[in-house]
């Protein structure tokens, strides 16, 4: 197990450099005129242009310029300096302010997905073809079919503005209650997927030989389901949720925008819109690490859940 973790960590280093290189290259290639993008439609003065060009080495173009800027960026990164955004703010500070709220939001979403998704999935799996099973199938199909870009404003309008059950936006320093609605909206998609996965897995495992053995041993149904079936059924769900944690952390660009939560997705969106290369690359570099770590945790959880799975 130890060797496996070390090996994975080494792979992570490679993956990290590979992905940052790709992201940097994409941002570099896609960049039109970031100075004009920053100014919107106002004319840019020569002085302002010269100032920004020099500060961000925007005159280094072509392949040579690309590697010059990339290595400059990486060497700063290794010293823990994420650089400055085009508006002159430290990207480290931006991220430090953005992470806590995004993590809170992601945790709420995951909690919603696990508590409601897995529970309902188990129930639906046990009572296959019941009214409950069919009802959840219909509901999850509906949720999976509605993209967040529709669901989030709808939820905001009805629950926030019309009926005023929740505050319509969360703002910068939200309490748990203000984050609940965005969390539910964000988690609803994961919830639906987790529910379908759990239901299928449980339904399948209920017919497995070891369940019949457990039943014939005279074990109570509750124990059969909660210990034998559930543990085995959770493997695909854990895989899914592991990847989902990465997804949710990467910031729900839409949800954070609709509910005005200045998290990671909020900043990423602004970075893309204003062609702020340093900001986008900085955020994505950190996200790469989040993905890598969450995948590692999933791999380790496999081994815990299923002793047959061992990596050596």
């Amino acid at each position, binding site marked *: 197990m130890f060797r496996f973790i070390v090996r994975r960590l080494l792979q992570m280093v490679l993956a990290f450099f590979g992905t940052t290189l790709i992201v940097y290259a994409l941002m570099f290639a896609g960049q039109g005129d970031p100075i004009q993008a920053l100014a919107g439609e106002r004319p840019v003065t020569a002085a302002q242009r010269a100032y920004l060009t020099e500060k961000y080495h925007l005159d280094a173009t072509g392949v040579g310029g690309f590697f010059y800027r990339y290595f400059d960026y990486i060497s700063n990164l290794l010293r823990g300096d994420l650089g400055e955004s085009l508006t002159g703010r430290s990207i480290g500070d931006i991220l430090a302010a953005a992470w806590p709220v995004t993590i809170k939001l992601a945790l709420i979403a995951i909690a919603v997905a696990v508590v409601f998704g897995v529970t309902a999935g188990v129930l639906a799996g046990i009572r296959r073809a019941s009214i409950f099973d069919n009802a959840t199938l219909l509901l999850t199909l509906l949720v999976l079919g509605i993209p967040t870009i529709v669901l989030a404003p709808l939820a*905001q309008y009805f629950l926030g503005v019309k009926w005023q*059950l929740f*505050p*319509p936006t969360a703002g910068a*320093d939200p309490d748990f209650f203000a984050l609940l609605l965005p969390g539910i909206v964000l988690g609803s998609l994961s919830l639906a997927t987790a529910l379908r996965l759990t239901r299928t897995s449980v339904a399948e495992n209920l017919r497995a030989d070891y369940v019949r053995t457990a039943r014939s041993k005279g074990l109570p149904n509750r124990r059969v389901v909660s210990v034998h079936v559930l543990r085995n059924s959770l493997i695909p769900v854990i895989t899914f949720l592991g990847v989902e944690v990465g997804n949710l952390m990467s910031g729900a660009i839409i949800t954070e925008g609709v509910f005005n939560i200045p998290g990671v997705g909020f900043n990423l969106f602004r970075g893309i819109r204003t*062609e702020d290369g340093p900001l986008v690359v900085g955020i994505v570099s950190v996200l790469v690490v989040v993905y890598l770590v969450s995948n590692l945790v999933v791999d380790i959880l496999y081994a815990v859940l299923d002793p047959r799975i061992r990596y050596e």
Partner: protein
Amino acid sequence: MRVRRLAAWTALPLAVTLGLVACGSGGDGGSGESDPNAAVRIEIAEPQHLVPTNTNETSGSQVLAALFSPLVDYDEAHKPYEVAAESITSEDNTTWTIKLKDGYTFHNGEAVTAENYIDAWNYGAYAPNGQNSSYFFEKIAGYDDLQGDSPKAKTLSGLKKVDDLTFTVTLSQPYSEFKAMLGYTAFYPLPKAAFSAPGELAEGYEQAPIGQGPFKMKGTWQHDAKVEVERYDAFPGEQPKVAGVEFRIYQQLTAAYADVLSDNLDVIKTIPTENLSTAGTDLGDRFQQSPASSLHFLAFPTFQEEFSNPDVRKAISMAIDREEITRSIFKDSQQPARSFVSPAVAGYRENTVGASGEFDPAKAKTLYQAAGGPSKITLSYNGDGGHKDWIDATCNQLKANLGVDCVGTAEPKFADLLTKVKAKQPVGLFRMGWVMDYPSMENYLGPLYSTNGSSNYYGYSNPDFDRLLAEGASAPDEEAAIKKYQEAEDMLAEDLPVVPLRFGQNNFGHSTKVKNVEMDLFDRIDLIKIEAIK
């Protein structure tokens, strides 16, 4: 908030089981009595900068308008009058004497002196500081010496202190409307505390700017979250009627709109496009419109053979039904334009475009064919600005009314469009917009149509027009200057290098908790007039 949360928890199960519409929003907002101890909450986007000479977008200048008091403001007729200045006078339109009012202090207690203005303007004009608004100082003598990589000088030779409350500004050329320029953000003073060394801005000044205006900072700029200001009691000018303002930062206007609807936010400065059609019913008389300074137009590449004939340009203008487009596409959030300057400036006259601004398809077609206009027209625009709808509508009108083929071509960003236009690539007609820097006809005519204008991308060059502008700038007074500018504008109607299409409007709204919400010419909420309702 507390109360509503409790109500929400109890209402949720009710609403679910009974399908009830729960929880009204406490309806006692109508008393209308002003509450001087309350703060109001105003929507802004994250400002790019909060240094006066570096701020040229509306969010930043809205915050700075709370922290600073301008030298001049503008009256109903859009003419400047003194605020922080006692008097601004000139004999020859070249050397201007600015006398400051006594009694103004910065929020840290420093008295405001002439030096504060001189230091701030020098800082703004010095090219290596990379200030966004440095071009505002280009009319001042010595500006050129501060430009380039290693400028010859660090201070403008045209700025001279006379005494503590007086200084003179010498311009490199006479300019009759210099006074009108001074109301903008770039001309605020900076306290000594803003500088760590002469000409060097202290680190962290931007996080909590110290000004001499009616409000002072409360805490620091909380990026992506809010900027809070509170009333500065030692302010000698007209005191605001609220205790403070919270500028709340939004990334998406739809979120701000939802907050205004539920009284979680007091003022939204721009109603999002998708809500414009319902804003009237949602907000009632709390949905307001006011003229803005922006002008939207289609520009001709006059250097291209096919558009070099003014009759072709006039025919195209006559074939566009402006009313139809502002009504069906913009839901009356913009107004049809038939002039080259906005109603937001003194000297504006209606319908200066004249006959070629009237929608007359039959005449347009005859004229177009007689002048031999091209059989295919391209309209170029930037795809990220929501212009597709009206460009397509315009194209359809041209197709139907002129019998030509017309396509709208999107460039990804405005910068891409500009690059192509500057390189004189054949993009066809292209869309442009203009927002004034200061309320003067000159600001619409000079940069856009003079031969060396900074934003004259259409190759329009008319020596008579240039001469009239120069005469206007050196005219003895404002009235005389406006006359010259109006003559110049009439000349544009003859040549029609661009087709004016629409004037922008501010479409803003407010909650039930505030009143007297007004917007100024620079798209800023008037913070002196706004009142909170008890």
